[in-house]
């Protein structure tokens, strides 16, 4: 457990872990425990978001995150709409904001946005009245992935504070690395970023991370190793020598695994390139938390959907109350009721 007490949630959007306090992060993690319990029931559904509409607005491919958000929304009894940029009016030139406003006009309560541009969720949140959840914006942040990684670590070790967490691979292009870095630092873990200089600029030191270009230098001292996917679609050829060389220097191979701490915990946000950044034996082995991450992702997303929706609701209620006060007029005492 982290020392920081959970702090009640008041945000109608979840855009980035950078802007959350340790108390807010702990509040989401605590709330997620209750939703994890819902998933153990025979009827895996609660009416918490009954009558609400959640739209998955995805401008990039995704299997896990989209499915996880859809299932999370269904377990809360919300209605879910899936919107892919492919085959939509986006290909006819519609802007993100116009697309989102049109969808919002259909009565949507929460937009879950994935977009290739960093800052897309922030931009959208300023132009719509409903809640916005960032499901990945370019190389910027993927807050629910960060939260579920931290939840999984906390569940495994019983704490986050004081742990040494290595995040390995293509850091420069990774929103998962950034969200993990912010969240883990706030909860008092030490974050060691590992990767080749072309994919791991020194600038990350300013965000409070230790930057290491030699995996073997730290492999024996870390409690958690989070292996990132090599994002071939984002990497320019000049940043990356060859797959073989990458695996040799930064892959979690059998040989390298032997030099890890005995109780090391292995994570990967998926989808995995088996044999490139991680070998199958380790990914499927007893030290791996990879599938637990996926199950926990569901609980985290239920918690986030629930919390932003409650905050949005409270904001609306407060607005209505303020409007009612403005319009209140003294009634004539003898006013007659119409039959």
């Amino acid at each position, binding site marked *: 457990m982290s020392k920081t007490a*959970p702090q*009640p949630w008041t945000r109608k959007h979840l855009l980035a872990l950078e802007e959350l306090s340790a108390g807010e992060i702990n*509040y989401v993690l*605590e*709330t997620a*425990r*209750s939703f*994890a*319990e*819902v998933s153990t*029931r*025979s*009827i895996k*559904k*609660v*009416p*918490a978001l009954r009558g609400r509409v959640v739209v998955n607005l995805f401008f990039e491919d995704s299997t896990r995150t989209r499915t996880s958000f859809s299932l999370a929304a269904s377990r*809360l009894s919300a209605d879910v709409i899936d919107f892919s940029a492919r085959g939509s009016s986006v290909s006819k030139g519609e802007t993100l904001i116009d697309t989102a406003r049109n969808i919002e006009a259909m009565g949507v309560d929460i937009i879950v946005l994935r977009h290739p541009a960093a800052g897309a969720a922030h931009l959208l949140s300023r132009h719509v009245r409903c809640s916005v959840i960032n499901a990945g914006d370019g190389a910027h942040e993927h807050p629910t992935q960060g939260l579920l990684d931290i939840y999984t670590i906390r569940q495994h070790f019983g704490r986050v504070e004081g742990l040494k967490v290595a995040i390995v691979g293509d850091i420069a292009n990774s929103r998962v690395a950034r969200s993990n870095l912010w969240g883990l630092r706030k909860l008092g873990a030490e974050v060691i970023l590992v990767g080749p200089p072309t994919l791991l600029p020194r600038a990350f030191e300013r965000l409070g991370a230790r930057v290491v270009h030699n995996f073997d230098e730290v492999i024996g001292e870390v409690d958690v190793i989070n292996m990132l996917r090599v994002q071939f679609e984002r990497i320019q050829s000049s940043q990356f020598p060859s797959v073989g060389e990458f695996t040799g220097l930064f892959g979690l191979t059998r040989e390298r695994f032997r030099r890890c701490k005995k109780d090391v915990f292995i994570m990967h946000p998926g989808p995995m390139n088996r044999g490139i950044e991680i070998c199958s034996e380790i990914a499927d082995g007893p030290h791996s938390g990879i599938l637990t991450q996926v199950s926990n992702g569901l609980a985290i997303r239920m918690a986030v959907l*629930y919390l932003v929706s*409650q*905050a949005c*609701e*409270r904001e609306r*209620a407060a607005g209505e109350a303020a409007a009612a006060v403005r319009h209140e007029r003294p009634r004539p005492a003898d006013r007659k009721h119409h039959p």
Partner: protein
Amino acid sequence: MQRFHDETGVRKGVEALAADIAAAFAPDAPLNIIGIRTRGEVLAQRIASLLQQRGYSKIARGVLDITFYRDDFPKNGPGRAILPTELNLELDDKPLLLVDDVLFTGRSTRAALNALIDFGRPSVIRLAVLVDRGGRELPIAADFVAYTMKDVPPSYRVSVHFVETDGADEIVIEPR
């Protein structure tokens, strides 16, 4: 804040409840006792241990968090983080005693009933409360009541405090 009952009053109330419940359920038959978080959980625990002293041997206990089932959250939602429901017991075809501290509008009870039905099909569900303060908004009544308070204005809050959760056993009335 006006104190309606002190430690002795709370103890007597719980004992009276346990006696009434004992008269309605056989000691050798299974009985599930489920408290509504937070004060209902403590009350359920106390009732269960009194019944066990009376020889009830097949009591199973559980805790229900009804937040996801409320119709008035976020207005009246808990200031605390939601905690997991703990119902690791078999509900089907067994009597269930639902326990809450104060019965007011009946909306918490409604939420609890909805939640319970998602977990199974008890043979009967009975409701035990320490205080019935009137003011019902739904057609719900308690089967076991220790104290009935009449004409408490809705602008007042009736609270049961327990040592475990609040540092003292008492029943108090205070303006909202």
